[in-house]
């Protein structure tokens, strides 16, 4: 296992591994996403209180989950890159940031569109919404810092520290609805008790969540491939690859 991971740390191997893995994750995203979307939009019941508006949940909740999952993943990869100086890990962290930022943006926008008809307001400065907005700023700050530093390795070290500092925000987002009183309701699926969502709504929700996760994996691997080619453009194998096609 360790051996396999060690060999994957070589850019050339990772490049080829990422190519096929990305394809499979992309297929998985479609396999779960298309039926998931059909169930969510056409074949799931309206909510007893919210009626048809509840269908926004099937995009909003997976996007919000992914916004946090991508951040944790990005911080973990950045730490591995910082401690062991593994360039592929730094590339994964770098490639994750824009994807995470878009998921956060999607969660905020769909949440706002959901908030107007249900709560009566587009936005409120409660703890959940504010901490999610801070997450978007963390992503944007990470991207800006990465772009501001010319040298790749210096940039990787500086952004890893920023990513680690921002990790503190993740538990705050998750527990914000328990620690303080907010307009946003509490957790439904991830609470320790039984999830308080009917299975006919939980199934499409989980399918969408799996699809979003697979989509993230597919896109991040593709972006890492591009970054590896860019980093290794002077090396023999990349020249060979470029000459071949």
């Amino acid at each position, binding site marked *: 296992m360790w051996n396999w991971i060690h060999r994957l740390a070589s850019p050339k191997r990772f490049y080829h591994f990422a190519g096929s893995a990305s394809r499979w994750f992309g297929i998985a995203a479609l396999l779960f996403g298309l039926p998931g979307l059909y169930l969510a939009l056409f074949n799931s*019941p*309206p*909510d*007893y*209180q*919210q009626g048809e508006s*509840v269908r926004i*949940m099937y995009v909003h909740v997976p996007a919000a989950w992914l916004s946090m999952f991508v951040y944790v993943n990005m911080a973990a990869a950045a*730490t591995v890159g*910082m*401690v*062991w100086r593994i360039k592929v890990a730094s590339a994964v962290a770098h490639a994750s940031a824009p994807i995470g930022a878009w998921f956060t943006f999607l969660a905020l926008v769909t949440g706002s569109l959901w908030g107007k*008809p*249900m*709560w*009566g*307001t587009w936005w*409120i*400065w*409660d*703890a959940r919404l504010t901490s999610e907005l801070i997450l978007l700023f963390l992503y944007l700050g990470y991207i800006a810092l990465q772009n501001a530093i010319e040298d790749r390795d210096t940039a990787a070290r500086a952004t*890893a*520290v920023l990513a*680690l*500092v921002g*990790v*503190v*925000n993740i538990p*705050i987002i998750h527990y914000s609805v328990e*620690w*303080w*009183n*907010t*307009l946003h*309701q*509490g*957790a*439904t699926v991830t*609470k320790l*008790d*039984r999830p*308080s*969502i*009917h299975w*006919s*709504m939980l199934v499409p929700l989980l399918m969408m969540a799996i699809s979003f996760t697979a989509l993230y994996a597919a896109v991040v691997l593709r972006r890492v491939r591009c970054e590896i080619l860019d980093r290794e453009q002077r090396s023999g194998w990349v020249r060979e690859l470029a000459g071949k096609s």
Partner: protein
Amino acid sequence: MNPIRKNRLILAGVIVVGVGIAAALALVALSENINLFYSPSQVVAGEAPRDHTFRLGGLVEEGSVSRDPDSLVVQFGVTDGAESMIIYHRGILPDLFREGQGIVAQGRIGDDGRFMADEVLAKHDENYMPPEVEHALETARSLGVTDQKTER
């Protein structure tokens, strides 16, 4: 593990723990301000500001909603189980507004002790179910069957 890597790993740990402690202290110090609304009990205990606007949250009391037939004026009680307050509002209420629903109102306390709300927002709970299931639960409750999971 070689000592340089070990040091870097410790550094990473120190960053996370240090920032975590700093954030926890800041949030504990600010907790009063992070809470979105005051409950009726807090208002009765005098914790809410008397001279400027604040938010009041609670459940709409059953049977307390009275509407003026000629205008948008509506008056209702909110409770947190212990204390309750009367809210007076002129405007359009959100679709989710109903008796027993959680709401958050923004406004100030008037001279007569009523809460004059400029804005009323509805909270919804974390339960999602089809209308038929809600109907079945309602029927079961009226027949005297109590289910811990669905009790709210």
